[in-house]
């Protein structure tokens, strides 16, 4: 068999990983509520062919709950990372294109948000916004834009010094025009990769926060809820309640991280030294 060149392999790998992530999301969204109903005749069953991840203390199928939970995490993660990435783009471009006062202010905010430990700040924001999905997403977004904002600022500063930008000003083009036509297309790949790489963080924080009780409400089949419920039953030997959902979450996070890093090599073949 002919060996694939590395770029093709990276493209196929990214597509396959993206397909798995989409399958989990769509699969979870399509699971009907009836599959998550309690069935007391099936309580506390160990994993088997009919119940891949076993059943819980109410007889609910853990595989269905896990997939549903991951799907929910993906949705929350997507919203939170999209918000974070958009804040990062706005701040990064403004810092690099604006006057030095804007740059100083932006850097000051980046330092400020970086200096407070993530988890503490997310919890504070989530509580301030009455917990729930919205507060949690905003909390994650507000704590995770800083790194990407710095990357984008650096990228824009570098491109801003190019001669074709100076020439463009000479043709009477304003900063906004230049930002839209010359600069945004240039930072778009960085932006997309940054967005994908924010995803795993967002999902981990979502699950962690929900586990601690500051995130999604208990009636939602979130992974954090599943894990915190299962804590009570681990001592009675029902380890599958925590092990399989936990491992699935870890696997999904690793998969998305891998996806981001592989896709980065496609966009920036030189920097990633494929």
């Amino acid at each position, binding site marked *: 068999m002919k060996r694939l060149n590395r770029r093709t392999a990276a493209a196929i790998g990214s597509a396959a990983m993206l397909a798995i992530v989409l399958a989990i999301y769509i699969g979870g969204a399509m699971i009907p509520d009836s599959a998550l109903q309690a069935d007391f005749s099936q309580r506390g069953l160990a994993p088997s062919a009919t119940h891949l991840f076993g059943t819980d203390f109410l007889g609910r199928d853990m595989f269905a709950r896990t997939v549903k939970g991951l799907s929910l995490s993906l949705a929350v993660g997507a919203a939170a990372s999209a918000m974070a990435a958009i804040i990062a783009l706005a701040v990064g471009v403004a810092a690099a294109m604006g006057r030095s006062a804007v740059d100083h202010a932006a850097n000051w905010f980046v330092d400020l948000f970086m200096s407070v430990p993530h988890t503490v700040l997310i919890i504070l924001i989530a509580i301030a916004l009455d917990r729930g999905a919205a507060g949690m997403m905003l909390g994650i977004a507000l704590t995770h834009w800083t790194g990407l904002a710095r990357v984008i600022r650096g990228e824009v500063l570098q491109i801003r010094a*190019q*001669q*074709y930008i*100076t020439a463009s000003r*000479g043709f009477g083009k304003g900063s906004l025009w230049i930002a839209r036509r010359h600069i945004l297309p*240039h930072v778009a790949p960085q932006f997309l990769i940054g967005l994908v790489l924010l995803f795993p963080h967002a999902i981990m924080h979502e699950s962690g926060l929900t586990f601690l009780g500051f995130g999604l409400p208990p009636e939602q089949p979130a992974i954090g809820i599943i894990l915190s419920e299962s804590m009570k039953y681990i001592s009675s030997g029902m380890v599958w309640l925590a092990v399989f959902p936990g491992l699935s979450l870890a696997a999904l996070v690793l998969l998305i991280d891998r996806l981001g890093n592989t896709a980065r090599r496609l966009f920036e073949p030189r920097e990633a030294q494929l």
Partner: protein
Amino acid sequence: MRIEVRDIVFGYTKGKKVLDGVSLSIEAGERVALVGPSGCGKSTLSQIIAGALKPESGEVLFAGKSLPRRGFCPIQLIRQHPEKAVNPRWKLGRTLAEAWAPDDSFLAAMGIEKAWLDRYPAELSGGELQRFCIARALAPETRFIIADEISTMLDVITQAQLWELLLHAASSRGLGILAVTHSERLAAHVSSRIIDFTPHMP
């Protein structure tokens, strides 16, 4: 519509001045050459005159007023490396349209083939790209061209062609030219007055 440069002071690092009190003036439609060795500040001065760099002190007056902050700059700068002066992600048709919309006969006069408009900068040679940079700078609003070593990296035939194009366009529109070069022969050929920019060593 003369250009007046008054007491320009500029340095890239603190305490080290590249230009220290430079003054000169160029009449409308005049062709002047700026000659001097490498590193003497010719390019820096060009950028300041075209408004691409801000001097630490001193001023550039065009027709008695300082250059407009916004809008098309009547003094256009063409530089040494055309491949740096165009967005590598844009097809050249778009690059040209960013400045103005030249008609077919103008493009033909500049020696630009129509097929090139549909290409990316990496698909053209340096001389071909420089034609685009010259064409771009020759917009209707332009009154003055600063040509900063625009032909230095090209072979002699291409150099001659490019200057022919530029001089022809400039004389038909009455544009002034400031030719920056370190070749005294080129300076003598394209200009009616030469400003020697050799720094006075202390």
